[in-house]
């Protein structure tokens, strides 16, 4: 009995030719099958609805079958190897994808930023010099700074305000749903909504809400998005605030509810006012959450593209780095400037990365 078990265990310690064949065949088979399906979809002229359903089925079952088959092969391995390889099967796809589509591209973009428009000649730091002297690009940098500072501040402050107010109001759920709702709207749709609000037509009858209000107050109607620069940027930032405050609010609200009630009650006993309690007790307790939310919104705002593209197309002095990037890359076919702008964005985020890794280390997550 014992001896038989030992032989069995020893047998499982070795790689048989069958196992090696399987380890090669299964990944290849996966690759082959999915390439075939991919080609089928590219060539097929199926009706849209049918096509969509098939694509969805392929996407969902495809990813499951890849993990399932790879794991099945590893399960056949000897125990020691099984333990060693399984983690890599689990992390592998994530690491490969991130490597191919995010990590390496970042390095390649950095490399491209030292080359000329069609990436044939090394130009050193000339692109960076150009980016920081070109008038349009400088405007873009200035506007981006405006977006990040004003937009983020407004989102965080309003988010906190609504979260605190909602916590004490008698219609909390409704208020939260209303403020959060714009999150579910695309920037493109929001662009339509706000274009309509800012709409200007000559004459007395205005169909844009803002101009109608202005006329009621006795002022002249304005073309809000093209008039007095750089204030038109503010009207674009309002859209971001409208959309992102809900995100900040939901997370702050959850954090505020997590503050122990007796802590607040004790402060109240000591005669502290509500405003004092907010600044002296609530804010310090949720400071970690505030940092997390601020980071998310800063990163999001740095990349801002859709709003500007839809509302003004980057005209009238409203260009930001991302729209300028798009214009350089696709209109002027200048990969050098395009890459440089992307790298400028990346450099701008570095302090935010450092701050967050520190926070993670403090929290013991790393």
């Amino acid at each position, binding site marked *: 009995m014992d001896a038989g078990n030992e032989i069995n265990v020893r047998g499982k310690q070795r790689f048989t030719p069958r196992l090696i064949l399987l380890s090669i065949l299964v990944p290849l088979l996966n690759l082959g099958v999915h390439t075939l399906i*991919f080609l089928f*979809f*590219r060539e097929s002229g199926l009706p*849209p609805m049918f*096509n*969509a359903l098939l694509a969805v089925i392929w*996407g969902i079952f495809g*990813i499951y079958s890849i*993990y399932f088959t790879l794991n099945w092969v590893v399960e056949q391995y000897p125990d020691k190897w099984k333990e060693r390889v*399984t*983690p*890599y099967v*689990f*992390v592998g796809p*994530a*690491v490969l*994808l*991130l490597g191919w*589509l*995010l*990590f390496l*591209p*970042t390095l*390649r973009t950095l490399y491209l930023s030292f080359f000329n428009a069609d990436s044939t000649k090394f130009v050193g730091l000339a692109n960076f010099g150009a980016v920081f002297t070109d008038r349009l690009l400088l405007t873009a940098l200035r506007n981006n700074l405006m977006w990040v500072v004003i937009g983020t501040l407004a989102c965080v402050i309003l988010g906190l305000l*609504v979260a605190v107010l909602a916590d*004490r109001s008698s219609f909390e759920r409704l208020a939260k*749903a*209303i*403020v*959060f*709702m714009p999150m*579910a709207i*695309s*920037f*493109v*749709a929001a*662009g*339509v*909504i*706000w*274009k309509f609000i800012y*709409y200007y037509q000559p004459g007395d009858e205005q169909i844009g*809400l803002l101009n109608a209000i202005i006329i009621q107050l006795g002022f002249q109607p304005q073309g809000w998005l093209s008039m007095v620069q750089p204030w038109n940027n503010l009207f674009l930032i309002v859209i971001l605030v409208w959309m992102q405050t809900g995100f900040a609010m939901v*997370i702050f609200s*959850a954090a505020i*509810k*997590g503050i122990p009630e007796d802590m607040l009650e004790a402060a109240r006993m000591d005669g502290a006012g*509500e405003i004092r309690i907010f600044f002296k007790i609530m804010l310090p307790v949720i400071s970690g959450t505030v940092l997390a939310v601020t980071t998310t919104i800063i990163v999001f705002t740095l990349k801002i593209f*859709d709003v500007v593209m*839809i509302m003004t197309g980057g005209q009238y002095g409203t260009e930001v780095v*991302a729209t300028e990037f*798009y214009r350089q*890359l696709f209109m002027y076919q200048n990969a050098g400037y395009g890459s440089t702008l*992307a790298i400028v964005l*990346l450099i701008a*985020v570095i302090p*935010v990365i450092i701050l*967050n890794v520190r926070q993670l280390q403090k*929290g013991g997550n*790393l």
Partner: protein
Amino acid sequence: MRKKVKAPRRKGHWLVNLILGIICVVWFIPTLGLLISSVRPAADILQTGWWTVIPHRQWETVSQIKLDRDTDLRKPIEVNGQSFPDDQLKAGVEVGDQRLIWENRRARTVDVQEKKWGSSTNFTLQNYETVLGGKEYKITQPDGTVQTEQGSGMGRSFWNTIAVVVPSTVIPIFIASFAAYAFAWLKFKGRKAFFIVVIALLVVPLQVALIPILRDYTALGLNGTYFGIWMAHTAFGLPLITYFMYNSISQLPKDLFESAFMDGASNFTIFSKLILPLSVPALASICIFQFLWVWNDYLVSLIFLGSQPEVQVLSMSIANLVGSRGSDWHLLTAAAFVSMLTPLAVFFALQKYFVRGLLGGSVKG
């Protein structure tokens, strides 16, 4: 999970409600304007603001006065025994409760108007038909002329969006959950290094990756294909989803795995039978996020999918509408509302998971 404690009533209640109420109204008005405009006829949208739908006091013509055809417009014009300059009649002049205004200056007819309660209540669903279908439609313009216009066929973009969004939501969540499980509970070489890289990639602006990926995609023939855009959305969403799922999965009790291991379950079984069911709240909330981001995305699809009608997604077709027919508000508003419906439905359906999942995950602080 924490029990919801009813906050005790505090002072300043009415003030809190008032301020919050004002904020809510301000937040809701833009969407309301869009919704109302999308069901108004094209001609009405261009002539009166959407708020005229709400009953309000407005001037309504009660009678007309025909003046002598030869009335000299350069001199003060006599109407009902009083005389007014031409300019005043153009803008409308108030006499007691009534207002006098030219109905037709050339034919010398003057409208006598009185303030009455009224609202413009012309509603139509034609905007939606035009936007969803691909056929031609006849639209009556404000000046009375009839114009045919081509429908924008958003029905097709809707299905394209589904084909892009559903896999782009499921695939990254699947991949990220596997990775998060390995990062949280398995021991392997390079665990810490990989994890730090993933966290660092969390804040890399995706613009940085666009040019190289575009070159690879062109070389591989992935441009304008569903598979290509799935991979792009997956990679861009992975860092956040992995981090989020890691937070949730690493908080599960350790003895859970140990007893399952004792029973001889493999990691794959533990993952699919134990981890996934236990992480449903976290999965649901990150699902909403990724779904909303991908559904609302414009830049990634603009670059990797392009705007051919066979693959065009909703955000793209609205953006094209804005570009090509920027003042056709009846089409724009209807199209925008169509694109909002699905994400709003998903959001409200999964709302309760959303807050719960966030509580267990990213709000650790």
